[in-house]
């Protein structure tokens, strides 16, 4: 995606040169394939390290929380929605930001590609015209359709274009609609399980968790000064590998994100053991849509439904 990279560099250099911002938050090329690194450019020379392609799947809104500088930031659809959530929740001010909108062509799933490879991937190349990704290693070379190796959240995304921005780095991309794809197919599968199946599903889902909190720390919503799992006085939850404590962490974190999660997928991308943390958050997203007609981060003014009260709020759960 050299056209994106070039345009991003051009805009970033201009903003720094004209002293519109103190820094621009983007990505630089990682030292291993499929992994670019969030990076801050504070002068024009540093902008040259910027890169944009299908491996920029973290959420840059995570890097502006409570900052005081004037910041230029690259923002895809989901990243821009998290910036909107930050604005509503007072974690940054609009006048501090210059949002460089990135119409998003979706990110590839690093876990999926690694599992597919017959050995270690040493290089990744993308052919934007053909829509293919080629992974190479010592004894293999495989070309796949990008559409087949997308992060699951990207393949289900309804907001690829930024919802809030100052300038776009490219023309808008076509959006998917709920008429074409059902973003909640997997949620419905889990909802249809009987209690034992559900128990086993979530038991298995979390069985590999090592409590590294990469999911939480990659998430722009998780900015609490002290997370409840780190609190020691009072201690809300045990810190061992006890299964109940591990589940408590995941359940409570998910609920704390209800009506705020934009399904950016950073949690899943960050997880070192490949847990699909989105099995929790996607269900809450579906509930918020069905109960409140709400999608997170589409407005920089309205507070999320669980943060407000209206007499019209659904109350069918009161028996």
């Amino acid at each position, binding site marked *: 995606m050299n056209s994106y990279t070039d345009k991003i560099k051009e805009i970033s250099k201009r903003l720094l040169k004209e002293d519109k911002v103190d820094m621009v938050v983007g990505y630089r090329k990682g030292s291993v394939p499929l*992994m670019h690194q969030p990076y801050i450019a504070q002068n024009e020379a540093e902008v040259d390290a910027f890169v944009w392609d299908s491996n920029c799947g973290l959420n840059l809104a995570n890097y502006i929380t409570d900052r005081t500088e004037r910041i230029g930031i690259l923002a895809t659809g989901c990243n821009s929605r998290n910036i909107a959530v930050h604005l509503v929740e007072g974690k940054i001010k609009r006048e501090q930001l210059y949002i460089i909108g990135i119409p998003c062509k979706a990110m590839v799933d690093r876990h999926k590609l690694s599992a597919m490879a017959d050995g270690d991937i*040493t290089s990744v190349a993308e052919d934007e015209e053909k829509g293919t990704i080629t992974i190479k290693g010592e004894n293999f070379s495989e070309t796949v359709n990008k559409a087949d190796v997308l992060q699951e959240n990207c393949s289900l995304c309804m907001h690829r274009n930024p919802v809030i921005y100052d300038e776009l780095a490219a023309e808008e991309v076509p959006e998917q609609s709920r008429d074409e794809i059902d973003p909640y197919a997997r949620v419905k599968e889990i909802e249809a399980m009987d209690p034992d199946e559900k128990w086993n599903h979530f038991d298995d889902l979390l069985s590999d968790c090592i409590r*590294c909190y990469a999911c939480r720390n990659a998430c722009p919503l998780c900015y609490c000064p002290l997370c409840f799992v780190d609190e020691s006085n009072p201690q809300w939850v045990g810190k*061992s590998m006890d299964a109940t404590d591990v589940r408590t962490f995941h359940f409570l974190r998910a609920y704390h994100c209800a009506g705020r999660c934009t399904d950016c997928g950073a949690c899943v991308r960050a997880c070192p053991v490949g847990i699909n943390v989105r099995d929790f958050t996607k269900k809450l997203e579906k509930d918020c849509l069905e109960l409140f007609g709400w999608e997170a981060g589409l407005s920089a003014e309205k507070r999320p439904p669980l943060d407000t009260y209206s007499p019209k709020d659904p109350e069918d759960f009161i028996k």
Partner: protein
Amino acid sequence: MKVIKIDKTDWASGLEKLRGSFALIGPVKEKFYHTFKTLEPGREPDMDYANTRISPKFVIYPQSEVILKCSMDANDPDYKIFKEPEKEYKSKAVVGIRPCDADSFPLVRRNFDTEDYKDPYWLRAYETTTLVGLACDNPCPTCFCTSAGSGPYSDDSLDLLLVDNGDHYMAKVLTEKGQSLVSAAGWNDDAGDDAAEAIEKKKADAESRIQSRVNTQNLAGQSLLDLYEADTIWETEAFACINCGTCTYVCPTCWCFDVQDEVHGNQGYRIRNWDSCMYPLFTRHASGHNPRGTKLDRLRQRFMHKLKYYVDKYENGIQCTGCGRCVRLCPVNIDIRRICNMMNSYDPESCTCEVTAS
């Protein structure tokens, strides 16, 4: 040291014989990556693997370990009196461990086995474990063991080293523990006079395939305070870090722990859990003050510990065996090779360092 030959046709039957005297632990593929698991009867280790995501450190040093127990029943005469739980330290054999992971144990031992203090839990588990290594013929692009005091054929920390040779393993019997294991398995075919030479040849070939390295020669000579204050390194590298515990938890050499008391029903437990220098509770004082209160402080602690404090204290290289797990699994691509080279090349006069690609 002798070299024996283990025909792969004798492999499974030998392992079954070992079960009489050892609990077997080995790499198996579950879901989509390999992990060390206790091998139930009939299950063989999958020796066709690069390495596991989580290191086998937990075999000796579990992520959560009950070290004391007490009754929480007020009517019990031993109410609230902590006692050591009855625990069986049965002989274990880790089959298929990579040399870099085995080399992490003596390194960690420097912390758990000192003149003043001997950690009973770690030592008991270590002493009852036999390490059956598997030499590494296909190192990963992120492996840098040869410049981190280890190597794909390093046998310093193993009891037995297996070298894959097509239809059989050439096995270097390195210790008495290794000898007891091969005897129990009934493996005793002589590998022939050429075996030792064949192993050396394969070793040289494997070592030449290690693609990346770290430069460590200047670390001991660098001033600790200069490195500590090297903002060029820490501010740039800390920006992306999210302070998760991935690097510390997948690392075979990170040893920090925290002790917690918990009550479940009528039982009290004192549990030792792995800690991570990335976490906000790490080294937080009772007053609430934390000398490592920021993201930058925590990131610096991890790398200064591994690449400077350890180097100075033990004078035995860096606290890293070059397994590359943290490089592969860090969600934001913090690369210890890059940071090590920056620290090694740091010039306090100009406040600059060399920045390498990896």
